């Protein structure tokens, strides 16, 4: 009788969802609060900054006119629906907050569905008293929880900064609903392929397509295909117009997407076997190509897809950002505090240069993050026991490590080349001197390479010297550099702190001067860190 009772208890497909969701949230207890915090700080911080920089209605109206009048800025940030503090905050960070929140849910859903399945963890869990749908349901709950948290906290934080309550709630709902829409979309994507990486790729691809669709729709204006913005979940965020005669019914679109996606995902999951995807696994080559014959060939083969993804992102972002540089001076020109500051700096030309230099700095920081992630693959190969079969062959440790380091260095350089080229074309074509601007911005982008490599070299040092600390340590160093570069000036940190970041020693181009000595020092640091790290790698235990 008791056995039967147990069996009846276990009969629902959702049994165990609560336990699995608690486990998933525990596994993400650091990453999720951090993501929520960053998104809220971004939006509330922007609202606060706008309030300080544009205290007058005329100043805000001018910003709205410039922002709304520049097609490239509309592509990047969306339509401007009004000149209130709330409208401008929505314009500047509404879509981007939705992008970050959606990326968060994409990573969460894939991590707790397909990644677990691929690793065989779901199989282990599935053999216990856990329903067939519990894994997917738990992953959805784990993505919904931070989305709702963002909604509540953002709705509370924005009125605190001084925005109207209704609009604040509207913006918070729009951002959270977009994240929910991508929760549904990712749930489907995770069913399609047998690999977590491709599932995540599909979801991020849909997000990228949504960005471009609404970008084109917004940039085109009333005369063009503005309906494209309606075809994009990211477009729905701005189309809700939370601070300008809100259209609450627009929120039904992301919610319907979420509901459809979840229903479809459960239906698909019920129709497939554990571990299988719906898209067939294409057979590959039965023999290795000539390229795949050494550690470098292997690293290239494993990393080329990732690099291509980063390069595509770079090309779009920097082409659009470069195109936005024309007229960027007017954007700040009407804020009297900023006007004084910029006049001191040298007027319109100097503002354009400062903007482009900031773009190139951003390209450098992100390239450093790329190089760090690539070098950390050494560590994940070591702990995942993929390094062992390679190191058991006639491949020395240094040669093995250099394979990923080479991909990281070449990849970072390629990304900076794409940034310089795309920004140069984007800006140059609009001002009618593409050749000149491409040359200038390529130089400016490459000037960031030594600093980016310096951060990567710290990763090599950590990996060799203190492998257990390599992953958290390397990301802490990158995070510190980002914080110092983005907020160091605003927070008026002492130059001792600013000097920690290698990017402080990079030339600010275009517009700045090139000092050779700091670049040489950076180069020496790269060399020294790498040599010490590799020497330590030769002396320590692997695994």
């Amino acid at each position, binding site marked *: 009788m008791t056995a039967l009772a147990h069996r009846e208890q276990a009969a629902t497909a959702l049994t165990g969802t609560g336990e699995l969701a608690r486990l998933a949230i525990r596994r993400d207890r650091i990453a999720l609060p951090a993501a929520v915090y960053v998104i809220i700080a971004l939006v509330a911080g922007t609202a606060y900054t706008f309030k300080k920089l544009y205290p007058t209605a005329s100043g805000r109206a001018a910003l709205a006119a410039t922002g709304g009048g520049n097609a490239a800025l509309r592509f990047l940030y969306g339509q401007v629906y009004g000149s209130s503090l709330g409208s401008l905050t929505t314009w500047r960070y509404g879509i981007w907050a939705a992008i970050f929140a959606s990326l968060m849910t994409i990573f969460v859903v894939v991590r707790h569905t397909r990644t677990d399945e691929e690793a065989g963890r779901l199989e282990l869990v599935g053999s216990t008293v856990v329903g067939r749908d519990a894994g997917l349901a738990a992953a959805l709950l784990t993505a919904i929880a931070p989305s709702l948290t963002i909604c509540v906290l953002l709705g509370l934080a924005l009125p605190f900064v001084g925005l109207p309550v209704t609009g604040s709630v509207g913006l918070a709902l729009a951002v959270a609903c977009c994240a929910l829409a991508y929760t549904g979309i990712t749930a489907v994507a995770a069913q399609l392929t047998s690999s977590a990486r491709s599932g995540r790729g599909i979801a991020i691809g849909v997000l990228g397509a949504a960005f471009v669709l609404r970008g084109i729709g917004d940039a085109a204006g009333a005369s063009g295909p503005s309906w494209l913005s309606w075809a994009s979940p990211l477009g729905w965020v701005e189309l809700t117009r939370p601070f300008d005669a809100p259209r609450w019914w627009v929120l039904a679109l992301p919610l319907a997407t979420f509901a459809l996606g979840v229903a479809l995902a459960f239906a698909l999951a019920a129709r497939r076997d554990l571990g299988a995807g719906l898209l067939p*696994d294409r*057979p*590959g*080559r039965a023999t290795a190509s000539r390229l*795949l014959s050494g550690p470098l060939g292997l690293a290239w083969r*494993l990393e080329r897809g990732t690099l291509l993804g980063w390069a595509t992102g770079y090309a779009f972002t920097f082409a659009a950002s470069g195109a936005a540089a024309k007229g960027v001076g007017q954007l700040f020109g009407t804020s009297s505090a900023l006007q004084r500051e910029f006049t001191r700096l040298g007027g319109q030309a100097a503002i354009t240069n400062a903007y482009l230099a900031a773009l190139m700095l951003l390209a450098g920081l992100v390239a450093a993050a790329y190089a760090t992630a690539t070098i950390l693959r050494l560590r994940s190969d070591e702990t995942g026991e993929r390094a062992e*079969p390679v190191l058991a*062959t*006639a491949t020395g440790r240094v040669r093995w490590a250099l394979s990923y380091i080479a991909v990281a260095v070449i990849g970072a350089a390629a990304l900076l080349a794409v940034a310089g080229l795309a920004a140069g074309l984007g800006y140059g074509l609009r001002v009618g001197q593409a050749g000149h601007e491409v040359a200038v911005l390529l130089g400016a982008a490459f000037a960031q390479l030594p600093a980016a490599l310096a951060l990567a070299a710290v990763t090599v040092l950590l990996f060799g010297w203190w492998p257990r600390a390599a992953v958290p340590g390397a990301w802490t160093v990158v995070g510190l550099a980002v914080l110092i570069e983005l907020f160091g000036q605003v927070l008026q940190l002492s130059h001792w702190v600013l000097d920690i970041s290698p990017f402080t020693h990079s030339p600010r181009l275009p517009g700045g001067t090139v000092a050779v000595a700091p670049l040489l020092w950076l180069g020496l640091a790269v060399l020294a860190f790498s040599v010490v790290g590799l020497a330590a790698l030769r002396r320590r235990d692997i695994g």
Partner: protein
Amino acid sequence: MANAIEIRALHKSFGRTAALDGLDLTVRTGEVHAFLGPNGAGKTTTIRILLGLLKKDSGEASLLGGDPWHDAVSLHRALAYVPGDVTLWPGLTGGEIIDLLGRLRGGLDPKRAQALIERFALDPAKKARAYSRGNRQKVALIAALASDAELLLLDEPTSGLDPLMEATFRECINDERQAGRTVLLSSHILAEAEALSDRVTIIRDGRAVETGTLAQMRHLTRNLIAAELAAPVSLDDLAGVHDLDVTGDRVRCQVDRAALNDVLGRLTAAGVRSLECRPPTLEELFLRHYSPERSSAGVPE
């Protein structure tokens, strides 16, 4: 070079846990040597030291006449390794991985690889993520067997294979023996060691407790006796009789070789109806060395 592997008084600790505690191991050139022990006994740690992945704390280790730590790269040209838990790159196909590992080792014979792929019935065009555990193991085995390495280091190579493939594996190892290659085969599957190995080393808690051919080891161990007698018999007073179990006219016990004659004398005096007397299987040897009262808790690998 008489010995492919020579290890003397090898020590290796991870923090406070001693994984290897004075291990001795000698593998002669051209032999198949089984390295037996329960999980956590230190088998994988030993192999990782031989591969130069881990640095020994103290003791001597030589591999093909070289130092496994300092000469790692050049030694690796002459050996092939199959890890116990085969992790492959999920996006690469089995065929690509076999070729890649062969090339990293300094070249492989494509015809031989092809023959092995057919022999093990592996689909080389499948991505590694789609392989089962056994198929992943086949990929690593084929890559190792297709090389012309002098020495094969196999860490529990059949733990994921089905019985049919296990038989194929045994054939392959016998071929390797014929070809004069040296094989170190770590295992906790006793039938495998019994079927394949020339000599055996048993390791427990990071130390070799016994080494030799199976014949030599039986020599050192007790015989199992089970008899049905005409009249009850008393064996309690004899030295060298263990685990005695007398139920009516049935007797079961383990007997040291020295006591065998005395025991048989008493049995025949009482009148034997049936008698079974045999050397222990490797399983029983194992139980004797790893029985709970004899071994403390295993050291995690």
